[in-house]
Structures are given as C-alpha cells and as structure tokens.
C-alpha cells in the first residue's frame, strides 16, 4: 500500500520514537496490564505504522461490492439500505410467538427471526415422552403446518424476510414454509429469508442432531438444490460461526471452522452436479460479534476476503455474487452476565457497533436479561433501540468500511486471514471437514479454548466487570423476566393430537412409505415428498422417525 520510501521512513521514525520518547516515558511510568494479545491470542503491537501493512497492495483492499469484497458485499452498503434489524423470537405456541413478532415489527424491526423449542429442533413431536418439560420453553413449538400457519398469521411473507434457526429438521420446516406460502398464493420466487440448515456446526458445536453426518449432508444438499431451482431469492443455508464461538472457540477458530464447513457444503452440492454459480450466490453466513472490538471488525473483513479467494481460486466461481460473503450477526450471549444486568446493554451496544463497522447485513442484539431467561418484550425493545440508535444517531452509516486503511485494522485483518488459512490447510491435511469432525478435531479445539477462557476468568486474567472486578452484592432481576405458562405444553399436545385425528391418515401413511423409499436412493431430492407430507398434515416427529429407519441415529463420542 505504501512505497518503499514511506515504509523505510516509518521504520526509522519508529526506531527513533522507541529509543527516545517511548523509552523515557516507560521508565517513568511502565505500561500496566496485558495488552500484547487480541481476544484470539494473536500478538499485538503497541502501535501500527505503514511498515506493518507494507506487503498489502491496495488491490487486496479495494472497493465495496467488488472482489475481494473486503470492504463490504455491496457498493453502497448502509448508504443504500440499513442492515436488517432482526431480533429473534420464539416461545409457547405459534399464536404466542405471533404476538411477539407483531410487537417487534410495530417497534421498527425490519426482519423476522424464529427460535424453535428443543423438541422442534431435535425432531420430536410435542407429545413425545422426550419432549416433556421442553415444549414451547426455549422457543416456539411446531409440530405440523397448522402451527406455522398460526406463527405467521397476518405477516406478509413476500414482504419481509424470515430467518428460521433450525438445523437437523430444517428441510421439514422449509417444506412447511413453502407449503404455507403456496396455500396463500404467494410467489415462491419472492420469498426471502433463510433456514439455518448448517448441520456440520451441530456436530462441532451446537449439538442438535438426528442422523449421522453423511445422510444429514444429503438433506442439506437437497435443500440447497431445491432452493436454487424454486426459491430464487431464498438463502437455503446460514453457515454459522455463532454457535462455534458460543461453545468456546476464539474468533480465528470461529471463522476457520465456519469456512471449513462452507467448503464441505459447496463440495457436496457440486458433487450433485450443480454448477457453482447456480447456487453459490445464495449461500449466507452468520457470525458472532464478540467482545474484542477491533478483532471482530477485522474478523468480518477477513472472512469476506477469505471466502472470495476460496470461491474464485478453489471452486472456479465466475460470478462475483458467488464470491461475495453476506452475513447475519448476533452479539455474544456468552459475554452477558447475570450480575449487574444493565451493564449488558452497554456490552451489546459495543458488540453491535463492531458488527456494523464490520459490514453486517443483518443483526440481532441480545436482551439484557440473556443470563436469566429467554428475552422479555421490554428487553428486546431496548436491544432493538440499540440498533436504531447506532443506525440513526451515530453517523457510522455514512462512510463505507470506515476503518479500512487503518494500519492496525488492516494488519489484524491480514493476521486473521493467515491464521485461518493455516487452520484450513490443517483440516485439508486431515482429510477434509467431515473427517475432521469424525476425528473430534474441532470439538477438542473448542473444548480447549472454552476451558482456557474459563480459567482466565477464574484467575481474573480475563476481566469481567461485575463478575471478577467491581463485584456487588447480588441484586434482583433487571426487569420482569419472561414467564413460562405451564399450560402451554398441554395446549400444544392437544393441538397435535387433534391434527392427527382430523387428517387423512391413509394418505399420510402412503406418503411416509414413499419418503422411506425415496430416502434409500441417495440421488433423490427429498424436498418434494416432504412438501407433500406436510401438506397432508404429517407431523415433524413422524417424518423424522420414519427416516431414522433408513438413516439411523448419530452417536457422539464426546471429547473434553
């Protein structure tokens, strides 16, 4: 980026400064605390100069909306359109969550994000014994398409994008979504949003799984292929680092493991015969905004450049859109404390700011009551207002990639990129992502990082205000926290039983037989038969159970 002269000059000026002013000052007043490493443990310098980005050409930085997309996926970024403010919501029945969605939309939210309860995430119906005590608790309960009808009642699916956090059962939820849209007469090519459908990070971090890895990859492939052919604007997958981070990974690992998963999905779909440029533009990503402010900004920038290089150089993508990484972001739940919960508003605001400075397309800000329960309405409103304040009051949306060209941020971006490529090479040498999961590589790396982090917190090496510094006597909960209504489970159980009693059971049985047959041929796409099944009001648990007969169940060998 700089001529040799400038770099040499910077070098000699730094040497002079270090020997002179800095040296004298340090003798009077030594530096305090530990400032030598980023949150991920990357080495940091005291101050950065042109010499630290001497090898970076301006072409590696470039302009937003063009390769290598370091500065953003779109040429106008927030000057054209603010990021999508997408607060996640989900509890109780479809109707309960529908109330929350309408509330958030009325408060100015511009996208929808749905959290499902554990039985829905894991493929059990609400009346399954395994679901006891979990129905509608951590998210909304969905058993049949009737629940989805209630969930989205009065919400125009052509007009607002809907993100659904769902993984091993993603293909069923997508089938319900498609069937619902069709029943309303919506144009499938106008639907926007995503199912998460990132099964690899489940084995690595979030641990919601049903089937073994290989048949699960086939289901992901079916989703991507179906969407490429039928839902032009829909993101069929959200390749997620968020949960990898929440499980303990540092930011370098988060990006590296996520990209490793992305590579595995692209390989899988390419093997099915789809040309790269026919589906790659719709692949979407999801990262956390962690606590280390500059490292996070550099991380988002690095992730874009890494993906662009991989898509162009490894997969031979031709379309720029195939190389363009777009991501949803969520602030880091793990950083929020039960102690002094109002402080969580500040933490979340700073994390959200790093997401915006890093060029996120969509953002969820956590509630201040995160460490207590799923968020209350009031907590979600404050979190949404945080985004609105950043967007409207701070001026940070005016200039694209405002930290681009910072010696520090560019150097840190380069450091992260190099560290990520190093991990990717290691995964490659192990035989690829799936093999590395089977060997427990990612899982052990994450467990190690989580353990080190916990130790640093216990020793006080890692400061957490209110927890290991400036500790106060325990106070009360910040606001009225979310209350679970005990009768929800019973209502939902009755609901799914009523649906089963009223539908054409012979038709459901015949379709389940067809599902089982089609599952045995790995080249068949299971989306069409699943759409037929959900239209016939088959429940999620029935579909999942039938496929277990063909696919079996995943068994983890835990490492720690």
């Amino acid at each position: 980026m700089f001529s040799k002269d400038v770099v040499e000059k910077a070098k000699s000026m730094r040497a002079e400064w270090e020997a002179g002013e800095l040296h004298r000052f340090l003798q009077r007043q030594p530096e305090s605390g530990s400032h030598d490493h980023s949150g991920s443990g990357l080495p940091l310098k005291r101050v950065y100069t042109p010499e630290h980005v001497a090898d970076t050409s301006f072409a590696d930085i470039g302009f937003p909306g063009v390769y290598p997309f370091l500065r953003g996926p779109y040429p106008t970024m927030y000057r054209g359109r603010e990021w999508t403010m997408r607060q996640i919501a989900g509890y109780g029945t479809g109707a309960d969550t529908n109330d929350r969605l309408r509330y958030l939309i009325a408060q100015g939210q511009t996208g929808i994000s749905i959290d499902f309860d554990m039985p829905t995430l894991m493929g059990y119906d609400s009346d399954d014994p395994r679901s006891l005590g979990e129905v509608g608790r951590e998210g909304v309960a969905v058993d049949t398409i009737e629940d989805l009808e209630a969930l989205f009642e009065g919400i125009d699916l052509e007009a607002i994008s809907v993100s659904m956090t769902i993984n091993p059962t993603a293909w069923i939820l997508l089938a319900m979504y498609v069937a619902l849209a069709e029943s309303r007469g919506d144009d499938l090519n106008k639907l926007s949003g995503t199912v998460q459908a990132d099964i690899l990070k489940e084995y690595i971090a979030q641990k919601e799984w049903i089937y073994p890895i290989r048949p699960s990859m086939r289901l992901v492939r079916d989703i991507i292929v179906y969407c490429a052919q039928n839902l032009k604007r829909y993101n069929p997958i959200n390749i997620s680092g968020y949960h990898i981070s929440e499980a303990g990974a540092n930011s370098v690992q988060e990006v590296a493991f996520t990209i490793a998963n992305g590579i595995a999905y692209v390989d899988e779909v390419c093997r099915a015969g789809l040309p790269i440029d026919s589906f790659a533009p719709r692949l979407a990503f999801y990262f956390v905004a962690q606590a280390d402010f500059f490292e996070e900004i550099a991380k988002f920038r690095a992730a874009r450049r890494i993906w662009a290089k991989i898509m162009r150089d490894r997969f031979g993508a031709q379309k720029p859109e195939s190389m363009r990484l777009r991501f949803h972001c969520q602030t880091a739940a793990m950083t929020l404390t039960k102690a002094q919960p109002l402080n969580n508003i500040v933490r979340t605001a700073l994390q959200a700011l790093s997401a915006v400075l890093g060029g996120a397309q969509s953002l969820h800000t956590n509630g201040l009551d995160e460490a207590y329960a799923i968020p209350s309405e009031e907590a979600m409103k404050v979190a949404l207002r945080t985004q609105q304040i950043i967007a409207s009051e701070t001026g940070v949306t005016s200039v694209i990639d405002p930290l681009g060209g910072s010696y520090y941020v560019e150097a840190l971006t380069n450091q992260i990129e190099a560290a990520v490529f190093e991990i990717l090479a290691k995964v490659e040498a192990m035989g690829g992502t799936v093999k590395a999961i089977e060997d427990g590589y990612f899982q052990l790396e994450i467990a190690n990082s989580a353990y080190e982090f916990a130790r640093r917190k216990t020793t006080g090496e890692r400061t957490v205000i209110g927890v290991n510094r400036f500790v106060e006597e325990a106070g009360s909960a910040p606001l009225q926290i979310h209350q679970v209504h005990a009768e929800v489970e019973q209502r939902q159980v009755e609901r799914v039983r009523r649906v089963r009693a009223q539908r054409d059971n012979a038709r459901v049985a015949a379709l389940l037989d067809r599902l089982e047959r089609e599952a045995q041929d790995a080249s068949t796409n299971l989306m069409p038969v699943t759409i037929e099944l959900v239209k016939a009001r088959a429940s999620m648990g029935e579909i999942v159970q039938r496929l277990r007969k063909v696919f079996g169940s995943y068994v983890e060998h835990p490492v720690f």
Partner: protein
Amino acid sequence: MTHRIRVLIAKIGLDGHDRGAKVVARTLRDAGMDIIYTGLHRTPEEVVTAAAQEDVDVIGISLLSGAHMTLVPRIFELLKEAGAEDIPVAVGGVIPDDDVPRLRELGVASVFLQDTPLDDLVKRIQELAASRQSR
C-alpha cells in the same frame, strides 16, 4: 479420603449446550477426580442407571433448556427407586432465581449458577463427596 472422588456429569433433556458441562468435567478431572461424562441428550433413567452402575460419589446435572423443574424431580424419584438416594446431586445451568429454593427443597445439594469460580466448584464437590463417604 478412601478413594478418588467419582463424579457423574450428566446432560439431561434435549439441549446441546455442553460448554459448561465440559469445562466442569475437565476442571474436576484436573483436580484429581474420576469423571464419567454421559454425553448429551440423556434421559433421567439413563442418568440414574449410569450413576448406580458407576458407583459415583456425586451426580452433577447440567441443563440450559429450562426443563429442570420437570426433569430434576424425576431424577430424585428414580434415585429413590434404585436405592441410591444417598448420592448428592448438584445442578448447573441457566436456573432462574425463583427455582433455586425449589430445587433445594427437592433435595439438590448445590445449584451452580453462571460464573461460579472454578475453585469454589471443586471445593464444593469435594465437600459433597466427603459428606456421602462419611455417611
């Protein structure tokens, strides 16, 4: 101390949040205890069977799904049926404040909330194990 302390770390219910359980397992292991980790998504029946078979001194249950008031009582019922109600049970996870006294009433010996210092945790598990061994 007659033998190394044996602890069963159990994840019950459907949630997959195992970060805390694994950090606890490793911390206790580093403190010289024998750890049996059940892995994820276990039922109360599986947990109690494992506890009895492995003859553990303490059962540590982790759950972040909010299902503790349904699943933890079931653990105590089953322990009683198995004649193993002398094994102290500790619970960790996201537990609302109001539920802490309720869990204690059920017989939970310790409730570990977020940000419990690891050294306190080790000490408490040692105390629980000692209380059982002295019975």
